[in-house]
């Protein structure tokens, strides 16, 4: 009787997967924590889970950041009981838009730091949520009346989260 030998993946590959999973679990935890916070406005959250997407982007690259953004919304929504509800769709649209805009800014805007990338991500997140609600759920332009003050809050949270991400990334780099 022959026994098949499973090839062991290289250590650096395992380390990379473990780091991504650790960030994913952290992002899911923050997603659940943010869902429990009192609402400051329609679809406004401090964006702490988005901070982890930004960390994944600078530490691991765009593919990992995008998959982390999608993974944390799907698994996080499962835990808070909003999977496949309008809240889930709004959250997914915001998370993916933020990840895509942050990747584009990181690649193509010269001289930008994590603060600027996070700022653009926060604004994209808020805009994408309103566009999703307006196009899929409540088709009324009146929804946009609430947008400017929320974008202002997004600027503040995006700037602070970017500074935090920069601080954490500097400490995590070997």
């Amino acid at each position, binding site marked *: 009787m022959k026994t098949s030998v499973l090839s062991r993946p290289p250590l650096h590959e395992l380390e990379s997967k473990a780091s991504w999973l650790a960030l994913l679990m952290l992002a899911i935890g923050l997603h659940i924590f943010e869902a429990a916070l009192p*609402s400051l406005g329609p679809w406004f959250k401090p964006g702490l889970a988005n901070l982890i997407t930004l960390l994944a982007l600078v530490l691991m690259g765009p593919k990992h950041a995008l998959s982390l953004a999608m993974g944390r919304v799907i698994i996080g929504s499962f835990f808070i009981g909003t999977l496949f509800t309008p809240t889930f769709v709004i959250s997914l649209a915001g998370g993916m838009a933020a990840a895509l805009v942050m990747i584009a800014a990181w690649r193509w805007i*010269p001289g930008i730091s994590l603060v600027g990338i996070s700022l653009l991500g926060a604004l994209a997140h808020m805009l994408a949520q309103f566009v999703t609600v307006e196009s899929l759920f409540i088709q009324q332009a009146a929804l946009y*009346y*609430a947008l400017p003050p929320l974008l202002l809050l997004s600027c503040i949270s995006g700037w602070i989260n970017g500074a935090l991400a*920069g*601080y954490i990334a500097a400490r995590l780099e070997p």
Partner: protein
Amino acid sequence: MCDMVTLAANLSSRQNMRNALKGTWTDRILLLVALLCIALSWFVIQANIAAGPAVAEVYYDKTLMATYPLPQKGQASIHFQLEGKLGLSEVVIDEQGARISSSPCSSQRCVLSGSHRHAGDMIACVPNRILITLRGSSASRFDAIVE
């Protein structure tokens, strides 16, 4: 000695955080552009919604179902039910403003948000597809809660 090393490390990390908060010139220019766009859109929206008497507009999905004037002190309040996607939502418009008093949605955030009576205020229940916006001459102030 150990305390000195810890203190130096703390000071250095505080300095790093301060530097991180400053951002680069590119970051500051992006922030300035964003703030200008937000201020411009704020003025345009306020100019549109602050004119005329104070009213509550009630929408279901794409349709404007009703427009009610906000009652002043001593005037009778308005109660009605609105059929949404999930079921009946109950809306109350009284001297304190407009509010959703009951809703079939699971999180009840629209109910918990309470009364709103300022131009630009909004109550939205996305699962039930109901939106109430307030417009007209009153102190323009942001206030909104949704599910």
